[in-house]
């Protein structure tokens, strides 16, 4: 079984996966995807909750045609690297578009989608993905 389907792991990461809430070390800059009081990298206790913006720019992408177990239903799917205004980079699924429509530097917006399913009877894992912006601000 994939780690993300274990209820405690799935549950601990939900604020990160749903809303890109991160716990950032104010000492070394490390980003944690779950609530922690001590930085896992430098052991500093100066860790603050932060929320990454709803929009980011595309850096690069690839298409996954041979997905791991539990991700098969969505194949082929796009995985991209995006960069936020503050320079934080993150891997993400990209949805609602074809790879040919994506250009580096393009603005994308966060949505919440199904990420994977543990068969017909297990958990459905939801989380952030990015997609081309629907409505310009």
């Amino acid at each position, binding site marked *: 079984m994939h780690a993300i389907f274990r209820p405690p792991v799935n549950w601990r990461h*939900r*604020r990160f996966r*749903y*809303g890109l809430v991160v716990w950032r070390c104010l000492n070394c800059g490390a980003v944690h995807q779950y609530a922690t009081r001590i930085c896992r990298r430098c052991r500093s206790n100066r860790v603050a909750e932060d929320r990454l913006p709803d929009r980011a720019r595309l850096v690069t992408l690839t298409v996954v045609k041979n997905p791991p177990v539990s991700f098969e*239903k*969505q194949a082929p*799917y796009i995985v991209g690297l995006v960069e936020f205004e503050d320079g934080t980079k993150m891997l993400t*699924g990209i*949805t*609602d578009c074809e790879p040919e429509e994506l250009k580096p530097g393009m603005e994308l917006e966060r*949505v*919440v*989608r*199904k*990420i994977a399913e543990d068969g017909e009877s297990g958990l*459905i894992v*939801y989380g952030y*993905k990015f997609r081309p912006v*629907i*409505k310009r601000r």
Partner: protein
Amino acid sequence: MSKLSGISILGYGAYIPMFRIKAAEISRVWGLSESELPVVEKSVNSVDEDTATIAAEAASYAVARAGIDPSKIGAVYVGSESHPYAVKPTGTIVAEVLGVNSRLLSADLEFACKAGTEAMELVTGLVASGMIEYGLAIGADTAQGKPRDALEYTAASGGVAVVIGRSGEGAIADLEYASSYVTDTPDFWRRGHERYPMHGSRFTGAPAYFHHIISAVRMVQEDGYSLEEFDYAVFHQPNSKFPFAVAKMLGIPAKKVEPGVVVNVIGNTYAASSMMGLAKVLDQAKPGEKILMASYGSGAGSDVFIFRVKEGVLAKRNRAPLVSELIERKRYIDYALYLKARGKIRE
């Protein structure tokens, strides 16, 4: 009493997945003559979308239009006939995605195509009683139609959410009246563990859709309203004929129904169907105008509402995508990709 005061829609949001299948493409596979097709095309969810993600996106637009702090929302109710889990609420997923406080009332509702408006009735009551400050009522579906069944041409995906709270500055529409008419009528059902619903075919018309909507609207008239005072009439839209037919029976001109009708281009979004009509009307209505809305849910019942559009709609309308923008954002898929997106390909 069904008359209300001091309650308003403070935000609304619609979401329609971008994929469309033409009714002609479905009939290419199963055969039905061009003249028999109930709609032109319908919306289809992406492989990574379900009722929870559709509800969350519609709700995020409703909260953006309302301009409120999500942590002040005291209730999240999601009405649907396609909740992702049989046991495990959709509402808590939506609430967590929005960042709603855990001090919250939440439940999933089921009442066929009127489950979303039932959520509106409940949230209205909770706001009116003072139990909560703001509440979210959501209707969302990825509706199931058995391959080759008449419903396959119309069963679509979409969601609409409204934020209801006390009236005040920024109100989009005041809610002046809310009531409901229900009976035990077996026009459409789905048993537990079954993938697709069954329906009473022609029985879904006169004793079901028409009887309940007309009875609900008659209550409005008995309570002192004249149908002439409404600028818009929004009805559940399972196909492109029914909303106009029920309007005709009630003596409401087609031009008051037209502005809210979307079924021809996105299909029947079930629990979101009448709410989608309301959202489209709010996208274009002027302050002071009055809206009559009557949903329909099989089994059966009709929720009826009266809204008066307020100034707030002008500033808030453009904070989120309009229904027309969501309709225009589309990509056609063929029947094979449709089967994949709808999970109809079984290993």
